[in-house]
């Protein structure tokens, strides 16, 4: 985009031409703009508006001012779900990212069968999370469950407050590590062989090369992966809905689950909207922070 320098005087003719250009530009953008406005901007505005009302979906919405917002900051159930979500993200993201990089590095060696393995690794991500949740629920079942049968135990994986969150996080990591690895594979493929060769000539071993050459050059990929997976981890819902419904005793009650409960179990749309908007704001802030951190540390030019 070329921006006119401030204070530049343009002749009327040029200004008209620019205007026409702008109109044409927006005209071309219109189709996708309609989608964004109708399905993104409007719902966000509706959610913000709704957060000041009490609405049970049947009777007329009633204006309640800041009541719902006050609850976001004070209701112990909501504070618990915020804490659970953070714990969940801290469990999932590091594990999943490290596992993704490790898998990518191994696959990148191009050993026989790598292509097939690559497809298999992505399979869990391709499957519907809800269906996976149901399968894992059976695997985790205390009686007649596959995992307990294998271990010869009868551990209540999903009913023990100490085990439920790690179990749910494990399913998330399992289903997404392969998908994350794909991005790192692409990132590895973009690193020129000459750079690695230079490192080798300078006497760097495999480990040193990885830490000081490969990993820094993977930063653009890392940035993208961290931003997208962090956001999706904060929004985790499907598999938790299938596995634990937020139980036991709220141990896996992540924010998205709490939003669902408020909206569709207790039919308190205003409370749910306030929570959803709060989650949205938090996610925007996290993305901005990530961008600030990576902006100074990313090199896109690999030549």
């Amino acid at each position, binding site marked *: 985009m070329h921006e006119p320098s401030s204070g530049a005087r343009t002749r009327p003719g040029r200004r008209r031409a620019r205007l026409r250009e702008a109109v044409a530009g927006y005209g071309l953008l219109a189709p996708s703009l309609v989608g964004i406005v109708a399905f993104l901007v409007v719902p966000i505005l509706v959610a913000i508006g709704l957060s000041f009302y*009490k609405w*049970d*979906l*049947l*009777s007329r919405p009633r204006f309640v001012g800041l009541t719902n917002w006050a609850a976001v900051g004070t209701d112990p159930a909501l504070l618990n779900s915020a804490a659970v979500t953070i714990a969940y993200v801290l469990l999932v993201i590091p594990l999943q990212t490290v596992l993704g990089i490790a898998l990518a590095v191994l696959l990148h060696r191009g050993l026989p069968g790598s292509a097939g393995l690559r497809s298999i690794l992505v399979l869990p991500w*391709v*499957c*519907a*999370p809800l269906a996976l949740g149901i399968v894992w*629920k059976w695997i985790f*079942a*205390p*009686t007649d469950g596959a995992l307990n049968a294998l271990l010869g135990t*009868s551990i*209540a994986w*999903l*009913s*023990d*407050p100490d085990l439920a969150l790690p179990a749910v996080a494990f399913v998330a990591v399992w289903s997404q590590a392969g998908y994350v690895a794909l991005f790192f594979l692409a990132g590895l493929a973009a690193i020129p062989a000459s750079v690695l060769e230079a490192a080798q000539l300078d006497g760097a071993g495999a480990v040193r090369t990885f830490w000081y050459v490969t990993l820094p050059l993977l930063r653009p990929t890392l940035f993208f992966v961290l931003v*997208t997976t962090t*956001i*999706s981890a904060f*929004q985790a*819902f*499907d598999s938790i809905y299938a596995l*634990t419904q*937020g*139980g*036991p*005793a*709220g141990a896996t009650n992540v924010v998205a689950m709490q939003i669902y*409960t408020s909206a*569709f*179990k*207790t*039919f*308190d749309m205003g409370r749910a909207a306030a929570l959803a908007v709060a989650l949205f704001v938090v996610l925007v802030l996290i993305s901005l922070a990530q961008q600030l951190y990576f902006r100074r540390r990313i090199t896109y030019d690999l030549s």
Partner: protein
Amino acid sequence: MRPNRARRLAIGITAAAMLLAGCSAPAASPSSAAPQENAQLVFRTWDENAAKAYDQTFAKFTAANPGITVKTEVVAWADYFTKLRTDIAGGSAPDIFWLNNSYLAPYARNGNLVDINATLGADAAGAWVPSVVKQFTVDGKLWGVPQTSDGGIAVYYNKKLVADAGLSEADIAKLAWSPSGGDNSLLTVAEKLTKDASGKTADQAGFDAKHVKQYGYNAAYDLQAIYLPFIGSNGGTYQDGDTFTFSNPKTVEAFSYVVDLINKHHVAPSAADTNTNGDFSRDQFLQGKMALFQSGLYNLANVEAGAKFDWGVVGLPAGPAGAISVTNGVAVVGNAASKNSAAVAKLLAYLGTAEGNQAIGASGANLPGVTGAQQVYKDYWASKKVDLTPFFSVLDNGTIPAPTGENFAAGYAAYDPILQEIFLGRKDVAAGLAEADAAANKAIQG
């Protein structure tokens, strides 16, 4: 994220398509309004067996009322009331649908339903099972046409497992329980019927509760089949009006007794199994790994189809206040916002006749709510040589009211996690129930 979005998109497209369908229907038929009405109605239920029966009923209805067709849709129980609420709010709800009395009040009070007396006349209800009519009356008005009448709760039993334990049907036919030292044959029988991996029963020394191979009984966190009957049979209450009364001392005793059956006497599956899988006990019974399975007529068709062994039915175990069960009917209600209100009224009237209600009874899946249609159901089970008397005789003892209230769903959502903890044995029963009371009653205040 991606499959997520794809699914949301699919839902959006479906919703849009439904909206279009809803809009185009009246536009397509303005010219043919004169002699016969043209209407396509949508009917919704949560029961797949019933849906098949309704299709036959609707075919007959259309033959008698040319121009009115009815489409049946099934929404699973787990999502039924969530989807219904959003569909009502979005104006895309079906014209007529099944409703259970626990969820009736908010729809009735908000004017979402067709007033049955005003539409079908005050005498219509005379043909229907009185207890169901009463359940669907809110603020003095009737809001539904009874379709099923569930009978009461009784106990299915596995004849072989009972005989193997050296017990006769007479031994299990009149079970009793008491939280404080009375006749406690339910526990002693259940102990004899519970076996660990080495074959030891629960009343023997060295019984290994960690490896139970055969359960005696299905005590569990199960509202309709277990804890409501236990509360009622101990003289306790679940609700007083809309208010939850878990702290009632008699109610606390009943819960303590049930929780002890699970966690102290180990005659029932662990709550870790049954809390997260509501069908666990039924599946164990059908696999021949559970001797006594307390449930309702709603599981009769499942037991008939799934049990590969000889089974029978005995009466509900009696507590200090007798054997008090719950009975829960289902009614079909009309959507007050339907564009085809005349056709809806005709269909509701038809479903309230013996002929209109008969099909769902003929397959043995549901006991009809229209009194004149019940015979087909009884004939069906008589032909299978199944004696259903225990499900009905229990109602003579009186019943504990089924859950109700304008904000019942919110109250349930609030107490549900707490009761799950109580059944898991991680929360003290009395303290947990007091907490459940407070949480649920706060939630229904809104």
